[in-house]
């Protein structure tokens, strides 16, 4: 399940008031999320949680649920 905190970071970065984000939501299904600002959103998530992603981790992400799991695994260590 996508946490309110992660959802808030994503929506704020995309300047969206509201959008339903679920585990299976793909990044490019979220209005405004495109290849050009993908890296900015990833950086915003890193900053929010004070964590760092590695290249293979970012490239393997298939949907927002996997991003949530990756965030959870980073903050638990």
């Amino acid at each position: 399940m996508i946490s309110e905190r992660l959802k808030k970071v994503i929506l704020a970065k995309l300047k969206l008031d509201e959008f339903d984000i679920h585990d299976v939501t793909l990044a490019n299904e979220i209005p405004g999320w495109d290849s050009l600002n993908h890296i900015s959103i990833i950086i915003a998530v890193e900053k929010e949680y004070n964590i760092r992603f590695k290249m293979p981790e970012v490239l393997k992400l298939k949907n927002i649920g996997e991003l949530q799991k990756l965030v959870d695994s980073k903050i638990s260590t």
Partner: protein
Amino acid sequence: MIINGGKKNLLWERWLTHSKDFPHKDAIVHWSATGEPFRWSFKSLLDASVYIAVYLRENGIKEGDVCAIIIRHNKFFYPLYMAVCAIGAIPSVLAYPNTRLHPEKFRSSLKGMSQKSGLDWIFTERELEDAIAPLVFHEKSTIRGLHFPLEHAEKYSAHNCDHDALFQAIEQIRLSFSDTMPLLLQHSSGTTGLQKGVVLSNKAIGEHVDNYCSSLKATQTDRVVSWLPLYHDMGLIAAFHLPLAFGMTSIQIDPFEWVLYPAILLEVIDKEKPTLSWLPNFSFNMMADKIHEDDIDTFDFSSIRMLINCSEPVRADSHEMFYKRFAKYGLSNDALTACYAMAETTYAATQSTPGARAKELTVDRESLSAGIVKMPLINRDSRVCVSSGLPINGCEIKIIDEGDKELGDDFVGEILIKSNSMFDGYRNSPEKTAEVLKGDWYYSGDFGFRHDNEYYVIGRKKDIIIVAGKNIYPEDIEDAVGKIEGVSPGRVVAFGIFKEEIGTEQICVIAETSLDESARKILRTKIIEAGMELSVTITQIHLVEPRWLIKSSSGKPSRKANKERILIGGDK
């Protein structure tokens, strides 16, 4: 350097020569972030191409057939493309649709392209079969068949092939080939199916490679690195055809991987020691701004002798921020160069001098708007223009006014190019060709000026929007947004606004609506989604009251006037 002069100035003959002269040298290094890179030597690449070429012939593909190639980053893309060339068919690389592009939009774009350009065959991946198959069986379709050549290519094994027999079969087919034959077809951007197909001959590309390499002071020890998609002229000509025809190594990065993780390019520079790379302006900003220090802290970029900024207006700020960020990793200030290029002249028309940073010229902004280049006086608003350099060999350039009169130095006008690598016209579009090709001169639609023999490109005549090197037609966006319920029909304009922090344009839409504030929130999301279906991101949306938009003399809303209105006063 002419490798094969005269009648046999065919790219295939050059590739063949390289495969004999340095069979074990890397031709293509197919890079993947998640695995080991795959290395095609000049010989292994040609052997695999011949294997696929014979398969294509066996499947009915013949000389002159247009073969659209729609596949993702795959190590067999290169021999497949070369195989199409080997049998005299015409490859046309098209963008693989991303998941946000609506299948119906993709199909309609492909259908329009096939009717306009006369696509004969589609080479793609099994995943797109359902999306494309209906086009093939449509009664008015020009498309004769759908093939999945990667499935055959993946069975290739150098040890189980009689390459001599395969080469002989191909040579028989090629006996009547000449260098004036079309080699490839490139399509402009757009989503309406009205994309123009640029036809380039063997001769045009071969001569362009020789002339441009001379301007670059290139040698066969140069190595090119690229993350650019191969459906884009900069990716296909500069980063694929040029090194392959000249005998350099080209390192190809997956464009999707680069946009997700731009540091990958720097990792490749550190490991593979390339010397040349072509990049659109936005990528200088993106890499300077979005890469973590600890991802690259031990890297060395000193191998790079030229980073060539092209495909978007070149910005001095972008060069400066990139240099400041990466100088400590060995990046030379002199490596920051620029060129001016277009598919119609094969690729480059000008190139700034190797071994020196592209010149910058600070001019008075108001005078520039009036078409005159003047140095700014103190306290006057100024603009820094970056030189795209001198015409390359085989190219002439002139600047003209609206009455077709040639202008001298420091006057702004339309840029015209005469090139011995000129395209053979837009395929099946003599009227479109005649609009831009008058006599020997190509009317670029770009505005610029000459100063001290160098050319500066400062804007464009048409309303085209360039986002991250990709051309977008405002009409496509206006049509899509105009169909949304709540938007007044025909009362929409779309245009680009340059954003310094990202080094490229963003798309802005102004739409008239009589909806109230709460309904406008939903409408905004629908407008963004309409853009997503076209595979573009609409970043700024202004919803305005009916009759807000200023009309042009033709009665349609004016993009220019409404852009100025929004920039000056907002949407009130």
